[in-house]
């Protein structure tokens, strides 16, 4: 897969079809990757495809000017399509280099399972529906589903639907919808006061680094409501109540734009389970409006269109 991707990327730069390639390169730490943004065709030889390519690169389409060739997994391709629907980017300026995806490794799950931290783990290898974790001379084989991200277990698009080039490769279907929603189900079973106490504890940790917002392609507002000061909607002080309001408004604001790429939760330095909010919104959007984000570049964005058949229990 990598060779095909590198060749294609180099060709696009050489022919002048794109100004920049946005893809993934090996990271500087174990089991990590890093976004590669380059206009140099020789640099495309460092493009990689592996189970650690977590970033949703669609977010760069918003800020880099020029024509971009973007490497996109299924969820990323949906974000790109959603941005096109929202007229934040134009289709002609983007060349989508689609890649099939069998799911990404959630390093926190591997750490929990092995009792070791990321850099103490020597190797994490995916072999079809199994993952082999090597620590020293010890090898441990687990089913992939136990260490893939929750959002990958609920993936609805393993092979991008919208693309200019589709890199050929395997897309093993490793699905577990129940596990994908497990945290949400736990929250739903709580009494409201328990749930409130739970979120209070979670958001007390929030440091307002805004990494969740910054990695999110759906968060494309030029001015975020948290930074408005006239009037001020929410305090910039990291008090749990304001942290919760920030995140609640963000979840509602990205409903219909969120593709459940899981980046908000992955990047949170204080491990707030943000996807429990965004995935619930994602599923509600599906249930209430029969809408799947980013599947059709020609469709109007969810919140700008209205069908008579839609659920409007609030009004009726």
């Amino acid at each position, binding site marked *: 897969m990598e060779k095909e991707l590198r060749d294609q990327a180099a060709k696009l730069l050489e022919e002048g079809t794109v100004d920049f390639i946005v893809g993934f390169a090996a*990271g*500087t*730490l*174990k089991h*990590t*990757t*890093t*976004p*590669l*943004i380059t206009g140099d065709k020789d640099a495309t030889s460092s493009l990689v495809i592996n189970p650690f390519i977590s*970033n949703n690169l669609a*977010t*760069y389409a918003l*800020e*880099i000017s020029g024509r971009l060739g973007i490497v996109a997994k299924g969820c990323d391709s949906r974000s790109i399509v959603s941005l096109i629907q929202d007229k934040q980017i134009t289709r002609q300026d983007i060349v989508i280099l689609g890649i099939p995806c069998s799911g990404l490794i959630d390093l*926190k799950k591997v750490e929990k399972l092995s009792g070791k*931290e990321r*850099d103490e783990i020597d190797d994490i290898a995916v072999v079809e529906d199994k993952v082999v974790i090597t620590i020293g001379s010890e090898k441990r084989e687990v089913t992939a589903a136990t260490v893939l991200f929750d959002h990958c277990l609920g993936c609805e698009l393993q092979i991008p639907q919208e693309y200019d080039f589709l890199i050929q490769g395997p897309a093993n279907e490793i699905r577990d919808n129940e596990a994908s929603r497990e945290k949400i189900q736990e929250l739903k079973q709580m009494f409201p006061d328990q749930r409130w106490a739970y979120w209070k*504890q*979670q958001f007390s*940790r929030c*440091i*307002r*680094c*805004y*990494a969740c*917002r*910054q*990695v999110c392609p759906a968060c494309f507002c030029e001015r975020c409501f948290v*930074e408005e000061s006239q009037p001020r909607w929410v*305090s*910039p*002080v*990291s*008090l749990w109540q304001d942290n919760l309001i920030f995140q609640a408004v963000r979840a509602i604001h990205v409903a219909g734009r969120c593709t459940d790429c899981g*980046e908000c939760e*992955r*990047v949170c*330095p*204080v*491990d707030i389970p943000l996807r429990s909010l965004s995935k619930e919104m994602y599923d509600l959007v599906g249930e209430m409006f029969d809408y799947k984000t980013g599947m059709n570049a020609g469709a109007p964005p969810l919140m700008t269109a209205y069908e008579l058949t839609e659920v409007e229990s609030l009004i009726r």
Partner: protein
Amino acid sequence: MITKKVSKKDIRKLLTAWNQECNVIVPSRVDGVVGMAAWDNQDISFLDWYRNTVIPPKSCFLPKSEVMMSFKKNENGLKLEVPTGEHWQVIFGVRPCDARANAIIDHVFAVTYDDYYYISKRRNTLLVGLSCTNPYDSCFCTSSNIDPTESEYVDLMFTDIGDDFVIEDFTGGGKALLNMSNTVKKVTRADIDKAKEVKAAAVGQVKKTVDMEDVDRKLRSLFNDRDYWERISAKCISCGICTFLCPTCFCFDINDEMIRKEGARYRGWDSCSFRSYTKMPMENPREEKWRRVRQRVCHKFEFFPMNLGINACVGCGRCIRLCPVNWDITQVIAGLPVEAGVKSGK
């Protein structure tokens, strides 16, 4: 300096003795996140798993948010209240990188300016260092001239030699702590030799290195090279992780919160990575991302050396380990054009 030792199985007793005199703060893991928190008088399991915190110990002196004063309107006008409670505290398990980081922030809040809120916490705190023998792959303290097992910025330094900790004391406060418990014993020659061995091995554990030679001069000559900064900042997503979780970043913002007739003035962390940073007087002079990235790099490696003769990075590696896009400061330093330093001539 007098060297002593304490058996690992006596650590609970030792901490308990301290906890009767002051608040003991230890590494704690809450919902998977490692920070420093009040000891529960019981759990010492951190001795097994603790490597370093996600939230740096600066938060003990400069918390993510704190009340500067509270106010209340009444019939007589406005009643102001400034928090006064000063508590003795001991922070156990500070790594040498973070200990130095605290000393760097002291320049800002305790040397060039007396910051009441910072000093009232800092001057009542004793730091107990813990030699770092299992650094992360992101750690590069040795490149910042820090020995992961030595620190002149702590009151006591503990080094794990197996069944015991060898303890070096550096200050009167440190000595006082040792006198609080009869668990502290004399060391043997063999203990000291073992500690030396452990320390020597620990330095080699820090695998990431970067040449800091001439970094300030190279940066000075690159300051106006927009292409350079645009290139290295391209993948940065402008979040606040690297600055908030940096043990030497200290920028803060002040906000008043008021509901009905009462409220408080808060101080909380701010970050030069944000587009809305320093917006108050006018617009942000660093509107473009490359200017913000440049500020972060130059503040640590150019302005600090220029103003205080010290580099403000301690190599704790949090900014690399926790970065959503693996933006790696050591790569940037290593990639500074060699001719850059020469060009400026100094």
